[in-house]
């Protein structure tokens, strides 16, 4: 199969598999991922080599776009509006999963520090699609639902920050393991990667704002926005800075500095869906079936400790912010699904750490499928317990 035929097949098969899976109440992301596993090299071998080889390119572009869109979370208006409980809960549930999974891998599984840190950072992500689907299906409304939506919306922003810090530390630890002064190097490499990304995103936002006045049509706006996102990704790669952070900072600075900045994000909506589809199918296709049997205890540890970390973190955040009892007890259960951002950052781990990367990536894909299947049931249970699903809806 040639590359273009393969792309056509992936897009059409992805579209219809998503329609099919929606009938049994699962998000499109799950369908794309399962399709990728099915047509990937491990099973039916229907993905052309050319597309598989460009997985890195596609994931960098998609992650840059996602991170840019996630930057919207940091608008002054949004941060003011969401309030203390959502901020506290989202930060602590993300950090809870990060810390607990890192410690579990380090102390129970005796994995190297940098591997544990990467698993912990990936664990901080949440997938809003499955959670939102349950909320929509049961038309849940109320304080618990609003808080849950607010937390899943901003959670991925914290994940990108946590992962970027962890990646910088992991890279520094990995490459300077033998050096005597490695702690100082770790510290400076991490700082350089993070602040460099911040400066790059900030600097690029200036010409973006200045040149905007020459844009005349919606088509030009889309090309202009994409051009700057690509410039940002390319420069970050060239300067060895975090692509995720610089894209997110570009989005965050833009949303706060430009009067009509929301239009840049709206323009992207026209093209991001097929790219996301491609990204998820390729993520599934990259699954290494032969590694799966060896992942038993690693997968199980990740599955269990991520959930415990999220639940404990959410509960602590709710307590600190004086949120109601139902949020304290059940909100963590609504944060179980994991998909897009987790897979994206796992792909980065795979390309940056060739030896352990495959193991990390395969664990994340396998656990993503499990989380996407059990996550909606847990969210429904949490909404029921919080009393925000109507009695007649529950019986459906």
């Amino acid at each position, binding site marked *: 199969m040639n590359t273009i035929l393969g792309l056509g097949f992936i897009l059409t098969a992805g579209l219809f598999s998503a329609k099919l899976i929606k009938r049994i109440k699962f998000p499109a992301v799950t369908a794309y991922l399962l399709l990728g596993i099915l047509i990937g090299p491990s099973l039916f071998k229907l993905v052309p080599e050319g597309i598989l080889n460009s997985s890195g390119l596609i994931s960098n572009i998609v992650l840059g776009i996602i991170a840019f*869109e996630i930057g919207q979370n940091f608008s002054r208006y949004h941060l003011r509006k969401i309030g203390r409980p959502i901020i506290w809960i989202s930060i602590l549930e993300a950090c809870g999963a990060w810390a607990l999974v890192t410690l579990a891998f380090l102390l129970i599984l005796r994995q190297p520090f940098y591997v544990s840190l990467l698993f912990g950072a990936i664990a901080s992500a949440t997938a*809003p699609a499955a959670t939102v689907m349950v909320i929509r299906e049961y038309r849940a409304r109320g304080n618990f639902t609003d808080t849950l939506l607010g937390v*899943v919306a901003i959670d991925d922003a914290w994940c990108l920050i946590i992962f970027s810090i962890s990646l910088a530390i992991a890279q520094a630890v990995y490459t300077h393991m033998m050096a005597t002064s490695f702690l100082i190097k770790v510290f400076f490499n991490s700082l350089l990667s993070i602040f460099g990304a911040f400066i790059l995103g900030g600097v690029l936002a200036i010409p973006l704002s200045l040149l905007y006045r020459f844009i005349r049509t919606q088509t030009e706006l889309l090309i202009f926005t994409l051009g700057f996102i690509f410039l940002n990704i390319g420069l970050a790669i060239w300067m060895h800075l975090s692509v995720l952070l610089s894209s997110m900072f570009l989005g965050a600075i833009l949303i706060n500095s430009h009067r009509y900045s929301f239009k840049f994000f709206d323009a992207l909506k026209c093209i991001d869906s097929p790219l996301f589809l491609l990204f998820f199918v390729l993520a599934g296709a990259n699954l290494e079936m032969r590694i799966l049997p060896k992942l038993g205890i690693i997968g199980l540890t990740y599955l269990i400790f991520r959930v415990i970390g999220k639940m404990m973190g959410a509960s602590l955040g709710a307590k600190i912010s004086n949120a109601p009892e139902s949020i304290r007890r059940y909100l963590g259960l609504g944060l179980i699904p994991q998909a897009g951002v987790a897979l994206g950052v796992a792909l980065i781990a795979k390309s940056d750490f060739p030896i352990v990367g495959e193991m990390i990536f395969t664990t994340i894909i396998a656990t993503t499928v499990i989380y996407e299947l059990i996550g909606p049931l847990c969210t429904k249970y949490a909404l029921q317990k919080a009393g925000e699903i109507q009695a007649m809806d529950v019986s459906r």
Partner: protein
Amino acid sequence: MIQVKDIMSKQVISVIRSTTLKQLLRAFDKFHIFPLVPVVEGDNHLIGIVSFCNLIDAFSSNHPDVLKLVPFLDEEEIDIFKIDITDDIGNLVLVEDVMEREFISIPEDVSIEEAYKLMRLHLKEEFPVIDKSGKLVGMVGIFDCLQAVFRQKGIIK
């Protein structure tokens, strides 16, 4: 230079946050199309807009603001002909539940060329017009710009 304030419509029907869906629909049931409706508060300060697209949100499970920020979200497919809603929704849904808080408004002193450029760029047919303090002072549409050009060229007097 012709400014927006020279061509805009000054008679504008606006609503407030607490206007109900029923009141909103009644206000425009004699119109042949639902227009862009400005939402104001206090001293005519513009805080949002409602278009016919936002009326569809009355059928959705809501939270449109938060969900705009969420990546990889499946679009909510709403079959407005089959959805099960009761008639009390007319009083329960308020303008503030469906209005857009992020919207484009035009200062009254910009040129009509700039207004026309913004309409083409953002694929909109009309915009609310505000004064320096953010108060709603009118509405301007593509047709107002076209009329001004036709008048300049002497096609209409």
